[in-house]
């Protein structure tokens, strides 16, 4: 779209998806659709564990056409496009998208292609507004303005950090002012901190967390230490970047407590990188209290690639955040800026209402899904650790839908490269998709587990997936396999 004057914001009905299809002729055109699930007679849900305290989601159900929940067969059908030869136990990396959502997305894409000007002027803004509104209530944000939709957490980090860079450049911050981040912060976020903060004259302090970890206290202790170091010599700590759930190795961090400590210690602003947050752990903005909070929706919330939200607390000192891709909406607030960053495919952002409907087909909605994922991943993790004679990377209460499981030491994992090669070997030879982490021994440690697998559990997983992994490792051990065989 290359020319237009300022547009009036059209408030559209909430029932966008319940109105008659304005593009009926398109339904003939949807090619290469994923197989929609066939309705089956209701069966007892295999994941029911008799728990009568399932949390009921706060917002009303969008559709209550049927009182029966999604069946196991329907779930498998929704994910029948997954490669059936692979035990897919890595939902954490790229998430998943049910076929009914993918089909809705395709419909939106065709609507745009059908008459793009009309779509742009009449459907796009109300659609994004609707998605933002649903997300606001999901995460308990006070104001709609606090919710912006972006591509992914990486983009959100760029937005927050670019603002920090300006503060240095414009003299609001002094050279040498500090940012704190976890040593296990995601690689892309570390690079972003380097690009925008270090380069602008800031100083970074990393919080070294123990792994395996045994309790929240261990994390809090290290965090306090790092904060003290940051404040040495009268320096100001401008930003704390805290993962809600670290990526590798994965652990649920006690963010609420760390945010509180930050406030006590006079940290300017806190940015919680909760890439894995939504659909994995509890996300409540009032409860957590951070200034900025981002989470991907394509990882654990069934959205297509890719979409994330960035929450920016209204009461926060800094209200001058900008999307780095600047368009005519510049200066109208981050949420409005992010809703138009030039012509592109916004369908992943528009399909959010359908995702809420999908999630509501499960007993307990997203809360029920989270709970069952957690229980199952712990169970599978314990099963694997027992069979292999190893240990978990953290206690069950410090994980959500992913857990670290020690791999037998005899596999001889002794570098990051080993983990990549082993992972490839598991994928190619055994049809198992799972990321591996190298945990380097510290001084004095011997005969240690140096390799951990990060297993995920999502609604499409079955016990067989983990048995396949168990057996693959057992076979490797039985064959006397070590990672040295993969080198060279």
């Amino acid at each position: 779209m290359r020319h237009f004057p300022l547009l009036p914001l059209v408030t559209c009905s909430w029932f966008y998806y319940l109105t008659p299809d304005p593009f009926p002729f398109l339904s003939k055109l949807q090619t290469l659709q994923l197989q929609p699930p066939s309705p089956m007679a209701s069966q007892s849900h295999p994941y029911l564990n008799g728990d009568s305290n399932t949390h009921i989601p706060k917002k009303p159900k969008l559709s209550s056409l049927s009182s029966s929940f999604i069946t196991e067969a329907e779930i498998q059908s929704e994910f029948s496009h997954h490669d059936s030869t692979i035990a897919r136990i890595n939902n954490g990396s790229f998430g998943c998208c049910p076929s009914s959502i993918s089909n809705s997305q395709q419909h939106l894409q065709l609507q745009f292609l059908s008459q793009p000007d009309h779509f742009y002027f009449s459907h796009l803004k109300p659609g994004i507004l609707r998605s933002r509104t649903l997300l606001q209530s999901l995460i308990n944000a006070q104001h709609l303005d606090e919710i912006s939709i972006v591509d992914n957490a990486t983009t959100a980090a760029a937005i927050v950090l670019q603002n920090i860079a300006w503060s240095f450049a414009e003299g609001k911050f002094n050279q040498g002012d500090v940012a704190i981040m976890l040593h296990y912060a995601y690689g892309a976020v570390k690079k972003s901190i380097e690009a925008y903060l270090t380069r602008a004259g800031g100083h970074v302090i990393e919080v070294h967390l123990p792994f395996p970890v045994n309790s929240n206290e261990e994390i809090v202790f290290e965090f306090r230490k790092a904060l003290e170091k940051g404040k040495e010599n009268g320096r100001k700590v401008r930003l704390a970047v805290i993962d809600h759930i670290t990526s590798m190795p994965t652990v649920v961090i006690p963010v609420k407590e760390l945010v509180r400590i930050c406030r006590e210690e006079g940290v300017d602003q806190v940015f919680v990188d909760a890439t894995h947050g939504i659909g994995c752990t509890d996300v409540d903005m009032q409860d957590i209290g951070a200034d900025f909070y981002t989470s991907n929706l394509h990882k654990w919330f069934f959205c297509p690639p890719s979409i994330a939200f960035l929450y920016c607390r209204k009461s926060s000192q800094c209200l001058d955040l900008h999307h780095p891709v600047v368009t005519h909406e510049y200066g109208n607030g981050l949420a409005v800026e992010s809703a138009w960053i030039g012509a592109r495919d916004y369908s992943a952002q528009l399909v959010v209402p359908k995702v809420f409907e999908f999630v509501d087909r499960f007993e307990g909605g997203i809360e029920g899904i989270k709970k069952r994922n957690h229980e199952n991943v712990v169970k599978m993790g314990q099963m694997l650790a027992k069979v292999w004679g190893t240990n978990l990377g953290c206690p069950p209460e410090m994980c959500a839908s992913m857990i670290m499981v020690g791999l037998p030491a005899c596999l001889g994992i002794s570098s990051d490269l080993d983990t990549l090669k082993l992972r490839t070997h598991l994928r190619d030879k055994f049809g198992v998709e799972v990321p591996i982490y190298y945990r380097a021994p510290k001084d004095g440690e011997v005969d240690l587990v140096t390799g951990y697998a990060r297993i995920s559990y999502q609604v499409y997983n079955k016990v067989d997936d983990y048995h396949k992994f168990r057996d693959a490792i057992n076979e490797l051990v039985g064959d006397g396999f070590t990672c040295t065989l993969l080198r060279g």
Partner: protein
Amino acid sequence: MGEKEELRNGDYVAKKPKLLKLSISDPEYLLASEFSHHEPGTARINNGSFGCCPESIIAAQRTWQLRFLKQPDHFYFSTLRPNLSKSRAVVKTLINASDLDEVSLVDNATTAAAIVLQQVGRRFSQINDTVVMFHCAFPAIKKSIQAYVTRAGASVIEVRLPFPVNSDSEIIAEFRKGLSKAKSNGGKVRLAIIDHITSMPSVLVPVRELVEICREQGVDQVFVDAAHAIGSVPIDVQEIGADFYVSNLYKWFFAPPSVAFLYCRKSNSSSSTMHHPVVSHEYGNGLPIESSWIGTRDYSPQLVIPTIIEFVNRFEGGIEGIMARNHEQVVKMGKMLAESWGTSLGSPPEMCASMIMVALPSKLCVTSDDDAFSLRSHLREKYKVEVPIYYRPPNEDDGENEPRHKDGLITGYTRISHQIYNKVEDYYKFRDAINQIVENQQVCKMLSTK
């Protein structure tokens, strides 16, 4: 369609089925086969805004999307990067870049502008650093300059684009004037932003000459915003000689939304300091590599580029044939409309590509951007004609040279596009709609739906 070929030892090998040749001059067939998803009944003469995407390409895109969803880890580790490289190689050939490292794929020209301007912003050192651009630069570019240039302390000089325009020399003269003004306060011109084809009003700009002038006049860097160029005009980045050149592939090159290429001349030392604003693992590995991974997202529009080449090669003359036909037709239709309305074209035929500006009857009374918008909405809703309208404010400097119509000053123009799916009837529909509105003695203010 498959043919079998007998080999010497009697084995048969099935040949790859030949794709049907497509006819540029048969829009009805194209509409039925590749563009049946276009809303029927709408005269879609605004390809310039959002482009179009044929069904063959949509299907190819869907295939890539499904491959990712099927096994995303495998896709990420084994499929994504080699295929992005293939796409970049195709673009490199198309634009005659000398090195693959000069070609990055990004979402759109707006993103490319952010990349270039962030880099330029970092280089500002003196109070009198200046950036020069056309006054009709795309609104997003103007805002990007505010965000990255003005904020960093540099100043901006706007060059007036004469419109209606009669020759390249008019544009060149204005540009020279603008450059002199920029240098007059002793400052350094850090960047000149030159549109290859302006958006509104749309005119084909003599970029090669303007780049030469920039070099003569000691401009640091030249950025050509060629959002509309690829698939509209032939592009030879070596000949054009700019430091940075961006074009959107989803406008005139049949890509799905959205993908653009950003060319960064290797001999420009700052190319190695260009960064994508969304920083990921690949930070520091060069812009093309950084752009090929900016976090998990759908890269399928970037992956279908080789398939698009197959598509355009099904036409007689390939993309050159398509460009020539679009140009010929849009000029013909523009002249037909101007004749019917008793108005004129905004530029001579040689100063347009696949879009042309046609003056609207002055009786419509286009007196503001709002009027232009109201007229456009009215045309869409009442007549099912999709076409953008431009308000051209009267310019005191033009004096007697103000564009005129038999009934008065011309203040409104329309920008018509021609793409392979367009039919003559689309333009007749538009012609008749305007004639009807004039006959009804309606003016823009009456058409407002507010």
